[in-house]
């Protein structure tokens, strides 16, 4: 008898089957974000490899060019730096002044070559750093993370303002299902640039509410992104701004 009643009781508890589609949607989104992260990671690694390869490939040419440079300068015998015409940096012109170069001991000439090589490889390194920085900046723009400890409380008045704003944007109910929306503002946190609200977007299904997504919303109420709880905190991408859709 216990089994019969327990089965009947549980059978009457119907889950929301629409959740299955939500699960597959979320899985797709996660897969996309995984691909993006992998691409960014491999992009950075590829850039580093390219820089190293470029340095290795062009090193003999740079070396040859630099070996020729002091000779050309000394051959002109004057203030004109013929080979130096390709040197755009004005400071490099002062490295091997023609007058000094005429009687320059060999060791000093080599110093000039070394300085020029250093300049060329510095330029390549700077380029590599710039490209890595661009990738890092790109990631910083598209991703955010916050730990639970960084979240602080929001006043009830503020919660009401934010919730009313979200209702004014998304409506009181979902158009297709007529399920009533519920915006729960959990707290607030600061990033280097902005202050965000952290919230949960739910809707009422029958007599209980069901979670649609967690979100972050900036204090200016202009950007709202889906976020994912990851045990110790939340992370989000700025790929889709709900307020722009």
């Amino acid at each position: 008898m216990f089994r019969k009643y327990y089965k009947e009781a549980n059978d009457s508890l119907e889950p929301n089957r629409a959740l299955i589609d939500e699960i597959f949607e979320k899985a797709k989104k996660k897969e996309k974000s995984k691909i993006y992260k992998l691409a960014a990671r491999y992009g950075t690694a590829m850039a580093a490899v390219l820089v190293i390869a470029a340095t290795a490939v062009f090193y003999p040419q740079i070396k040859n060019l630099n070996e020729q440079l002091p000779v050309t300068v000394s051959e002109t015998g004057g203030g004109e730096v013929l080979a130096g015409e390709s040197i755009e940096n004005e400071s490099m012109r002062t490295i091997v002044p023609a007058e000094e170069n005429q009687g320059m001991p060999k060791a000093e000439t080599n110093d000039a070559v070394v300085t020029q090589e250093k300049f060329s490889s510095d330029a390549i390194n700077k380029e590599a750093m710039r490209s890595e920085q661009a990738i890092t900046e790109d990631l910083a723009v598209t991703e955010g993370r916050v730990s639970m400890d960084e979240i602080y409380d929001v006043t009830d008045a503020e919660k009401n303002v934010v919730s009313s704003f979200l209702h004014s944007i998304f409506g009181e109910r979902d158009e297709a299902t007529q399920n009533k929306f519920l915006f729960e503002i959990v707290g607030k946190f600061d990033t280097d640039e902005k202050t965000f609200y952290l919230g949960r977007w739910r809707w009422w299904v029958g007599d209980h509410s069901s979670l649609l997504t967690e979100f972050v919303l900036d204090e200016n109420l202009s950007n709202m992104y889906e976020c994912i709880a990851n045990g110790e905190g939340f992370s989000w991408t700025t790929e889709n701004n709900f307020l722009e859709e």
Partner: protein
Amino acid sequence: MEEKRQIVEKYFNMIYRLALSQTKNREMAEDVVQEVFLRYLKADRGFESEEHIKAWVIRVAINCSHSLFSSSWYKKTAPMSELKDEITFDSEEKSDVYYAVKELAPKYRAVIHLFYYEDMSIDEISKALKVNPSTVKSQLSRGRKLLREKLKGGYDFV
């Protein structure tokens, strides 16, 4: 993916009810269901058989339900009033047995639910939960004893 969808659809109700028996709250049960199946869809491991998948999702559901309560998210955001989720039934008997199970400790709830609702054998439960069959037996026996006390002996536990 189609194969995985069939699995999700097949075990969706089972995991929901198991999660509900553990969390005692419909919202939290849905959160657990989402987590379990997202993990399943992400899992790269090769499952040997459908029984293996079933055991795996049951174990993940139990673990997720337990970790949900200890997560900082729920500690911070879910007030106790929200955790109380009253469910009404059309008969007193259903209500009595359901709430009697609900009052048991989680470890007894899990084995009672799997044994009496999912009709799983002691061996199947022990494999799914990765515990010794004798542990399942003793938890089942202790769970039944507690239920008899709560229900004042009005039901048989075959």
